């Protein structure tokens, strides 16, 4: 994940709260060790090294994470795709460009076979690999928040890289943890909710003298100018993390997006659209006070 995680907890027993926060962050580190593609000893590296040759057995948590990837991939019509790494590299988003056609042949979550009964994963496309960077941070925050809740702490805020946040309860006397959605005129009051914000990042790619978009569409295999920002609020940080990545490509809510997720997306002409059951949690900070 390669980013900074922070935990803020409120309560009366400081040594115990410190221990709870440490346990939560330790879980994040443990998951980073499991799902980092940069670590040779991670579970993900093991899967990437062997799933092309045979079905690789994985633990229940890893299988659930991969199943969540497949679910969001389906519901987003392939806009979220954890197999897109080879294409990103070929387009030069992470270094020197390569053969994009060859890379495109490796990409597609439909080339990742998940056998629920046997709890195994297998790649059917040569050269395929998984990069869980678009979802693992959310999962780590969900698990860290579960440790905090199980320890009986009812008030806290956890974030990873300031792009995904989980609110537990609310500060005393407040309706929720107020978070500014940077890059938009909105603020949101979160209480027992997760939120993720994605923005285009990385360098702009130039091909044939043209400057291409920051975001790669896994379906077409080419860069697109999707949304300039995508914000998703829901109960699970794993879901909001993955969906904010998908919406950056799609630019708008797709029909099959789960109804319990709330989105904030830029519209034509500088307008913004908030849509979903938690719409009331958002208000414009430039509108002279909190609404809703």
């Amino acid at each position, binding site marked *: 994940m390669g980013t900074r995680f922070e935990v803020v907890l409120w309560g009366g027993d*400081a*040594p*115990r709260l*410190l*221990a*709870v926060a*440490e*346990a939560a962050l*330790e879980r994040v580190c*443990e998951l980073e060790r*499991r799902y980092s593609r940069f670590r*040779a*000893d991670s*579970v993900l590296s*093991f899967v990437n090294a062997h799933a092309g040759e045979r079905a690789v*057995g*994985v*633990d*229940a*948590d890893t299988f659930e994470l991969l199943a969540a990837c497949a679910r969001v991939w389906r519901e987003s019509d392939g806009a979220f795709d954890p197999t897109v790494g080879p294409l990103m590299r070929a387009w030069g988003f992470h270094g020197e460009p390569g053969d994009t056609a060859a890379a495109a042949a490796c990409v597609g979550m439909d080339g990742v076979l998940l056998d629920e009964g046997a*709890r195994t994963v297998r790649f059917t496309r040569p050269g395929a690999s998984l990069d869980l960077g678009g979802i693992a941070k959310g999962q780590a925050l969900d698990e860290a928040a579960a*440790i905090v809740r*199980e*320890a009986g702490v009812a008030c806290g805020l956890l974030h990873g890289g300031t792009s995904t946040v989980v609110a537990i309860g609310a500060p005393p006397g407040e309706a929720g943890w107020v978070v500014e959605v940077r890059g938009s005129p909105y603020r949101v009051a979160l209480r027992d909710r997760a939120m993720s914000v994605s923005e285009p990042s990385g360098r702009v790619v130039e091909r044939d003298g043209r400057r291409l978009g920051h975001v790669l569409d896994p379906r077409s295999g080419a860069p697109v100018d999707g949304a300039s920002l995508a914000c998703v609020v829901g109960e699970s940080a794993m879901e909001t993390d993955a969906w904010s990545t998908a919406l950056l490509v799609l630019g708008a809510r797709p029909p099959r997006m789960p109804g319990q997720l709330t989105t904030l997306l830029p519209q034509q002409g500088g307008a913004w659209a908030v849509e979903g059951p938690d719409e009331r949690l958002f208000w414009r900070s430039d509108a002279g006070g909190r609404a809703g």
Partner: protein
Amino acid sequence: MNETDRRSFIKQSAGAMAAVALLPELGLARPVRLREPVTVGVIGAGRQGRAILGELQKMEGVAIRAICDIDERRLEAGVRRSQGAEGFADYRAMLDKRADVKAVVIATPTHLHRDIALAALAAGRHVYCETPLAHTVEDCQAMARAARASSGVFHAGLHGRSNPVYKLAWTFFRSEAVRDPVAMRAQSNRKNSWRTPAPDPARDREFNWRLDPAVSLGLAGEQGTQQFDVFHWYLGAYPVRARGGGSIRLHADGREVYDTVHCGLDFESGLHLHYEATLASTYGGEYEVLHGTNASMWLAWTHGWMFKESDAPTQGWEVYANRQRFHNDQGITLIAEATKLAAQGKLQEGIGLPNSPLYYALGDFLRSVSEGAPVVCGADEGARASIVGILANRAVVTGGTVEIDPALLRGG
């Protein structure tokens, strides 16, 4: 042969030359693929137990059939992680009911190891036990005696002895490359409270056993045992005296167990090991340094470096080795699997271990069980290192000097 080919040939040959000399001594950092499958039960599903489950799942030929923990949540999480494993709250029930479990891995709090290990050995199981083996000298000796009387494998989890980087460094230490040891130091720095949030305040003592002076071996025992043993192994000797002290520098939360300690171990040869550990600073992390008249070695568990003296004889191969700069010194990276990497032209990349040190320790144990490979670190070595850790902690707690009677380390 053109110039590029020649350079490549020399580079590969040089890498191979170094490694050929090392190969007979090395287990190499190869993945664990057991010839005969082994069924395993893991007792203790806390922090270390979770790490063990993760490493076992990467190995071929290992089937985790049972997991045991007295805490319901930890047990449930452990079972979720291991398909086909049955959960037990009591290790005796696990040993009774799962006769198919041939090998038992013990990762409970230190003071609980003894009874579990003795029961597992009595039930005819092979045993891997994390170190320190126990929190008292008597318990360590009892475990060593029981292991000697058993026909099964007993592997003490002293991870350095299985670590490919440390094995590689050991071969250098035994050669002229380092020559006569001059001085030794080690540290374990981290920044955390060493507290575990208990689900119920009434169970706080059970969960926070490391902060309970009655059973905790403190930083010198819990962290130091692993690190001291690197020197025991390299020198083939154990200290005769421990001096120490400590204080609470950061976590003034009512605890009695020090969060910062220092101790010195004296060897009969006159060599001295200086050790520091703290929970108040991360600087430098965990490492061991051994100074020799020809070179010094800095070992940091997943990486290792050698620093040659300018008057040390050149052995040839090191000209081509990967180097890293550390202020005024230049370190030669100690790379496990040098032959393979040289063949792939990767010797210059300076990569670390492909798996955690724990993986290799568990792998050595399971190879002994599955293939009858010699035990890399038995109960006697485990007991000796643990006794040194116990006595070092005693020196830290009393702020004085503790003589280490060699008779204690002979077993019995």
